[in-house]
């Protein structure tokens, strides 16, 4: 099948690549663009390991065709923070032991980022409900929830300090 020319913005950078329409966004990111933070876990849109932010929405990149993502603005874990500018969620996941094998972590943090954008001061229940599209096999979620609540508090404090 012929490949088509694909343009996206990924982590703030304009990117172009060739892909078959059927190629999944997760494969394009990981194999064509070298963005390996998002992972593949279940392939049926249940586990959320492949979660990326697309046009301001948390989506499962294993269930998006490359062609559908043409023109989209995509943010992955790599776009949230790096060695010199860790995102507070990245810090809080470490601080509160919100990860073990690390495989779900990029998807978790990317999803949590969008959750806190929409609800900066969530309750524990809202965090658990809002994170229910992401599976973790290691942590039992308790420390993930703790990390997200701590990040929300940190972000609120930083915002207050800035005002």
């Amino acid at each position: 099948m012929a490949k088509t020319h694909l343009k996206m913005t990924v982590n703030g950078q304009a990117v172009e690549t060739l892909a078959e329409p059927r190629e999944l966004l997760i494969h394009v990111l990981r194999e064509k663009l070298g963005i390996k933070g998002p992972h593949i876990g279940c392939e049926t849109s249940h586990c959320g390991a492949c979660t990326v932010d697309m046009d301001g929405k948390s989506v499962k990149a294993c269930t998006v065709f490359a062609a559908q993502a043409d023109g989209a603005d995509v943010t992955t874990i790599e776009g949230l923070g790096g060695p010199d500018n860790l995102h507070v969620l990245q810090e809080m996941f470490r601080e509160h032991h919100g990860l073990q094998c690390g495989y779900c972590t990029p998807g978790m943090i990317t999803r949590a980022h969008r959750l806190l954008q929409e609800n900066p001061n969530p309750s524990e229940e809202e965090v658990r409900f809002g994170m229910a599209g992401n599976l973790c096999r290691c942590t039992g979620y308790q420390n993930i929830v703790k990390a997200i609540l701590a990040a929300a508090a940190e972000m609120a404090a930083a915002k207050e300090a800035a005002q």
Partner: protein
Amino acid sequence: MNEMTPPKNERSAALKGLGTARKRVEDLRFTQGKGNYVDDIQQPGMLFGDFVRSPYAHARVKSINAEAALALPGVVAVLTAKDLEPLSLHWMPTLAGDKQMVLADGKVLFQGQEVAFVIAEDRYIAADAVELVEVDYEERPVLVDPMKAELPDAPVLREDIADTLEGAHGPRRHPNHIFTWEQGDKAATEAVIAEAPVVAEEMVYYHRTHPCPLETCGCVASMDKVNGKLTVWGTFQAPHVVRTVASLLSGIAEHNIRIISPDIGGGFGNKVGVYPGYVCSIVASIVTGKPVKWIEDRMENLMSTAFARDYWMKGKIAATADGKITGLWCHTTADHGAFDACADPTKFPAGFMNICTGSYDIPTAYLAVDGIYTNKAPGGVAYRCSFRVTEAAYFIERMIEVLAIKLGMDAAELRAKNFIRKDQFPYNSALGWEYDSGDYHTAWDKALKAVDYDGLRREQAERLEAFKRGETRKLMGIGLTHFTEIVGAGPVKNCDILGMGMFDSCEIRIHPTGSAIARLGTISQGQGHATTFAQILASETGIPADDITIEEGDTDTAPYGLGTYGSRSTPVAGAATALAGRKIRAKAQMIAAYLLEVHDNDIEWDVDRFVVKGAPERFKTMKEIAYAAYNQAIPGVEPGLEAVSYYDPPNMTYPFGAYICVLDIDVDTGEAEVRKFYALDDCGTRINPMIIEGQVHGGLTEALAIAMGQEIAYDEIGNVKTGTLMDFFLPTAWETPNYTTDYTETPSPHHPIGAKGVGESPNVGGVPCFSNAVNDAFRAFGLTHTQMPHDHWRIWKTAHDLGLHA
């Protein structure tokens, strides 16, 4: 000491050694999406392999036609058993002394079995080609129920060994029978049961499930024909064992094989075995001369690699009228699937199922396990437990409850009455183990007090009355469990895998500036070894944990080890690490004495330095000693500061714990909601409390899943009914409760630092605890036992059968 020397406690804290809730060094890369998992590995010219799999559970393979697949542009080759046969790789040995087809050799024995391996330029082409391979099957009668395996009309599954009456573990009485394994005294136990005033009986089924780590299995095999070197990156919980097996199978000399376990996205036992995908990838790389990647998809993972459990445990437990247990009898029918590929130490075909006397002083016991072939996937791995320990714990903790009902006794009191007492350790069990240490009564009392057990029982009684009055449709269940594990396999005298003794190893190099690297034969899959092993070494060598790199998983650099599973890393490799650290310290002492111009015995260790006895102002820090080791000629001492230790444990370790769960059951819908879960673990010396807590949370959640719905279910013709995460239950944050953790600390007397291992305890103890809570909710209505998994409809059925919907 001089004025510049910080006090002891400050120096000690700076090391971040044993007992510190040290933040994990792994997390920086994982939180930034910079982990390196097997599917992240890309090699120039890399090809992709994908399997044609059997849609049938039992069929003859009459022909395989790959013409159309080979004609597809981008397809490089299609391998079948015929291609592997000249290399003698169409079958492979299993860890359990059986053999397994790599690719279907004339027939298939389970749905999802590997039939042909397509190699193509990318994974899309490979998947298209899989669709084009035409396989002509002739269906055969299917055997799903192990209880029917030896009936006259049962189909013979393993025609290859139908006439072999002697198996790897003794005589076979039927072509579908694998082994009988007996432990304990049958005649004495049956005599006790015959005469006992009280005997409770139950069939306890621990259903088939799957470890299902979030990352599936996979590998990249790369044969470098120029240098004659084979490199395989893969999801291997035991990389050195894979290297040895790969060498024996392929004929490639072991020094020319390099196995690398990169970051592993969870294992839980799934990644111990050697799977056809690995073998086919290696062959494909040898054939094509290019790197070949194979990554399972989730359905393949659930259908073909590494099921767990599937034990039918028939039990009888005898006691005096006042509740002193006098005997335990168990017969287990073990459904092993189509090949016996259980990952157990060689001499233990049913693992350590003979720990099934649990935490109790049971004077007489007997266990027999019959392994059976069925048309299901092979495996029988230890899913977050030491070999069959979770089956054993589930069995005994259910039998205790059933006995309590028969006696009309409170189950907490029955347990306390029968615990092995602290003064009985080391304790020799009726089924042959020497329990190293324990203090069960202390843990139990602490747990009951922490949850206000008496108050819970009062609340339960009130709820029951309200239910009977029609004021509520919810019943309250209180689940109790006191489990004892046996982990840290194991002593080389009785534990081996494929002939390799189950020691483990650590090699340490101290650098001239006083930092260090240590390499081990284990491999973390999320346990945080890079964090905790550095803590052990910090306490042993006085080098701050932050200055120690831990490296695992590369067989070219790491010393030989048996890998990570069965909670063996801390008990075995952790001990090797401590002992290697002590070797470093012993040499450091000689160097320090030389530098301080005193006799070796005139100096003593003080956190991070050697000081002259009685002259604390005279000392040499480990940092100074390290520098001297490389920069100063010291008479009679070799330059450098390195050590290696291979540790053969004298015994297993026996972690234990007391768990209590409270849940509410909606009898009309079958829904259960966990309201409280208290977990007290005693894993001996605690290396990193933060990581221990994380392990307990995670293990309990896996236990919740198993107890409440997670299963690999088959229909009557051997189709897998639970092949995706829609139906294979993994709870989300929404279904998962909060847990309260607690501990007691009873160090192992034989382990260098007293540690016992903890990663698997919450799974071993959690499953019976959740299940006991469900059963307990219905105790007042006459229920003695209902089978897992306790999903909505099974709970509803229990309520229905008890007349609660009338």
